């Protein structure tokens, strides 16, 4: 088993490759690292020279890259599928909540971040893949924080797959191809291990990426329906999906649904999920037992 770690997209990335050491694995890890760097250069909202920043500034982008087009499409499909619980147009709401710079800067101990009035979400976005064109409504800006990491994890898995069974973890978003991968999910009662054979897993919640503001504590999980950090009885949700980007959407959507509804949805739709409630209890749903 080979393990390689690096930092990208504001989080720690872990690559696991279940093969003996070879000279190829080094180049495989290097190519994955380069792929993360490439995608970060496209998708980061904190880099003024990124493609996403250019789109957010201009409100329109002709000749958008296939990755930006695809991830925007995925995000819009997810918005439609989740009834707006997942939304890529939460950028202004995140900024209004104080998350207006990288989390390393926002989350520095003792820093109180000024907040602004809540911003509207669920804004207009149009994607024309044939014309490589993305158009945003007036004032609308996109953020691909979570789904971007999931997308990158999926791409990384694609790159590693030819070398053998692999797993890529980008923060909470992980994707696996081949092999058996015991993945730990933290709960108040200890760690539950889920064995992932293929597919992906993501965790979303309000327990991390929190910061102090002049009006109290805030977190990054924005409810697009209100435009402010979500108030939910779920602390975090781990969901299993086909891809890491898909799992990220499921986890966020279930988290915003609230415990009761999330369990119902996970069971009905067959979404394997571990739900950790704010009161300390944990629930397995969607066929997990």
């Amino acid at each position, binding site marked *: 088993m080979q393990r390689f770690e690096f930092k990208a997209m504001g989080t720690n990335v872990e690559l696991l490759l279940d093969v003996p050491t070879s000279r190829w694995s080094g180049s495989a890890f290097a190519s994955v690292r380069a792929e993360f760097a490439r995608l970060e250069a496209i998708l980061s909202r904190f880099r003024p020279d990124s493609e996403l920043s250019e789109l957010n500034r201009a409100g329109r982008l002709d000749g958008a890259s296939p990755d930006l087009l*695809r991830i925007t499409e995925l995000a819009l499909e997810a918005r439609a599928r989740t009834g707006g619980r997942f939304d890529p147009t939460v950028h202004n709401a995140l900024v209004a909540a104080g998350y207006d710079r990288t989390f390393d800067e926002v989350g520095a101990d003792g820093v109180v971040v000024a907040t602004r009035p809540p911003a509207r979400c669920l804004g207009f976005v149009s994607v024309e893949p044939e014309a490589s064109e993305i158009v945003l409504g007036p004032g609308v800006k996109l953020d691909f924080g979570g789904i971007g990491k999931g997308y990158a994890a999926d791409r990384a898995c694609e790159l590693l797959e030819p070398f053998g069974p692999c797993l890529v973890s980008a923060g909470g978003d992980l994707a696996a191809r081949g092999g058996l991968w015991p*993945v730990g999910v933290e709960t108040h009662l200890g760690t539950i291990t889920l*064995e*992932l054979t293929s*597919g992906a897993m993501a*965790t*979303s919640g309000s327990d991390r990426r929190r910061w102090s503001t002049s009006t109290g504590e805030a977190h990054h999980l924005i409810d697009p329906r209100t435009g402010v950090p979500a108030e939910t009885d779920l602390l975090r949700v781990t969901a299993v999906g*086909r*891809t890491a980007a898909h799992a990220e959407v499921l986890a966020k959507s279930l988290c915003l649904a609230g415990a009761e509804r999330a369990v119902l949805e996970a069971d009905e739709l067959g979404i394997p999920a571990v739900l950790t409630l704010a009161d300390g209890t944990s629930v397995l749903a969607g066929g*997990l037992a």
Partner: protein
Amino acid sequence: MPSASGKAARMTSHVGRLYSLAGALLAFFLLWAVIAAHPWATASASDPRLAALAQRERQLRANAALVQKVVDHRSAAYRVALTRRQSAIAAAKARASAASAASISQASSPSVRVVTLPPLVITKTS
């Protein structure tokens, strides 16, 4: 009327001879210079070598223009081919990237179960 002896004395004078010799030499060199300058040759008279050179120059200029025309034509054709090739490469790259991006959303269904093994990695809130 001068006497015959006086005339003979003048004709045998050394100074007179020297002047005569210098005058003759001067006249000789002047004549040489005039003959060497070819004053009888007119400016319009055509030297066959110059004419050949001029013709050769015109021929070379014509050839150079022809070569430049061929080069321009080939260069234009090359630029068109290069543009087409670059477009084809860009399109192929875009197709490959789009296909790769599309395949992400078409991955197989996930397979997962709860086990009692120690975890290799931990998933946390992203």
